[in-house]
């Protein structure tokens, strides 16, 4: 009788087991994933003195090692003279050329000017693709009429390589900036439209209904429920569109450009300046990677909730 365990099995007056009517909230907030240490011990605590630099995750370490290995093979192959420098200059020569591109430039413009021209085209095209693609995607996702009108257009446009319609765009828009931006924008449009439409179709019906029951007008449902729900998809579409845009860049700058990374690579190829070609390719890859990181950061900041609920 004195032990607290025994009390559970004793007959108790009914009044004793009644609960207060307003019960406190159950449980504590969930821990964010990963914060709770398994076993309560930090890994590596027993492995001796703490390292002075932040630990590199294994996945990143493997990636860095692969990159270093690739550079090493490249260095050895060129160092031993297995491939003539005309076809493959050494990594050092390319790095040196990159530095000179930054300082002196190539074909009347520094690397920053080439890159600025290219980025301007890609971002102008992205702005256009989002301005047209997001409303079009909403129309496809929200209305049968919108889907009926726009679906065939998108499906027609999507599989055509931008190079195929480049001549047509030049006939229509001339050889100025407009044609270049237009070609890049056309390449970016389908991923933005399709991702937006898929996002709209995936909007939880219940979330819409709850808003309607709270008195939301159709415009308010669109603004406060559909658009925020669709934002993760739109950002995914933006990532894919940026990739498509960069791939189209060089082709768009083939025609009557005087600046741009793609144009720089093309001119360098005409002079057989392979080091410039390689440096240009590295710059395109590096900038594309940096943009990818920016969009991922935007995803974390804007739609950090996605995938958690």
């Amino acid at each position, binding site marked *: 009788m004195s032990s607290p365990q025994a009390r559970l099995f004793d007959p108790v007056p009914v009044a004793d087991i*009644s609960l207060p009517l307003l019960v406190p*909230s159950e449980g504590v907030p969930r821990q964010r994933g990963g914060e709770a240490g398994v076993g309560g011990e930090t890994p590596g605590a027993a492995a001796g003195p703490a390292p002075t630099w932040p630990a590199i995750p294994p996945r990143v370490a493997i990636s860095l090692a692969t990159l270093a290995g690739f550079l090493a093979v490249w260095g050895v192959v060129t160092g031993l003279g297995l491939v003539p420098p005309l076809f493959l200059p050494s990594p050092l020569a390319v790095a040196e050329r990159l530095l000179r591109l930054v300082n002196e430039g190539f074909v009347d413009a520094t690397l920053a000017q080439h890159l600025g021209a290219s980025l301007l085209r890609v971002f102008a095209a992205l702005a256009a693709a989002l301005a047209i693609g997001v409303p079009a995607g909403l129309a496809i996702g929200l209305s049968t009429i919108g889907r009926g009108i726009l679906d065939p257009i998108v499906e027609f446009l999507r599989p055509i390589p931008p190079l195929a319609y480049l001549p047509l765009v030049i006939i229509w828009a001339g050889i100025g900036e407009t044609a270049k931006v237009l070609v890049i924008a056309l390449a970016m449009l389908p991923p933005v439209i399709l991702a937006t439409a898929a996002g709209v179709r995936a909007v939880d019906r219940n*979330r819409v209904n709850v808003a*309607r*029951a709270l*008195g939301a007008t159709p415009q308010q449902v669109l603004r406060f429920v559909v658009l925020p729900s669709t934002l993760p998809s739109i950002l995914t579409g933006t990532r894919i569109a940026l990739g498509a845009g960069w791939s189209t860049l060089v082709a768009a700058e083939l025609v009557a450009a005087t600046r741009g990374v793609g144009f720089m690579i093309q001119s360098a190829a005409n002079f057989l300046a392979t080091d410039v070609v390689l440096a240009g390719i590295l710059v395109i890859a590096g900038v594309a990677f940096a943009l990818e990181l920016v969009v991922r950061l935007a995803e974390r900041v804007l739609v950090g909730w996605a995938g*958690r*609920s």
Partner: protein
Amino acid sequence: MGLIGLTGHLMKLTIHRLGVRFPQPRGGEVEVLRGIELGVPAGELVVLLGASGCGKSTLLNAIAGFSPPTEGEIRVDRRHVTGPGPDRGVVLQTDALYPWLNARDNVGFGLRLRSIPLKERRKRAEEALALVGLAGKGDHATWQLSGGQRQRVSLARALVADPEILLMDEPLGALDALTREQMQDLVLEVWRRTGKTILFVTHSLDEALYLGSRIVVLAGPPGRIVFDEPVPFARKALETGSKIKSLPEFSTARERLRAVIFTGVTP
């Protein structure tokens, strides 16, 4: 029963000859509800009970205005229901919270739609959170909350818009048994404090008997009302708590209700 109930009070909710049929993809239509007559006076907690597929959720959706009735009419006070509106708040089985908003802004969502200033919105949201036992949790992201807490936020979100009728579609169906018991007491407490007219859909006999001031049993398809009686336990539970579940009368009523649902005959 018309606008005036047996007690002479104006009905808060009146449903007359309601029928709902859904068109089938391959032609024809399926009848989900037939000839529903229901009058709910203000302040009642009506539990809609029935087996899966009997049309309880369809009835609630029709009252909420999500799906229009094929025939008949639904009125709140004297107003015809033609679509969703803030006079009828909903709490669904899936909490349907907005994960891009924290708990407080989820609760204040209905006020934001009415362009109520931020300061007042926050104040009223905090009050509603306190009412459901989540005081101080306003800054939490929805994914930091447990299932029961999320459903509390969902309830607070419906309450803050001050609806005349609260429609709850199996709101506790996805919760674990212990949380569910706590939430039942919370629903009773909210009912006592706010005096709202509540329609509560469930397929749990115990929950129906414990919460309802009146139980309406639907059978179908096509769904129709086969039982409609007042229940004494909910009002008692407000005074004495969950111990009424172990009263012999409760067990007797449970068996009787079970017979109604499975045989459609009132013993």
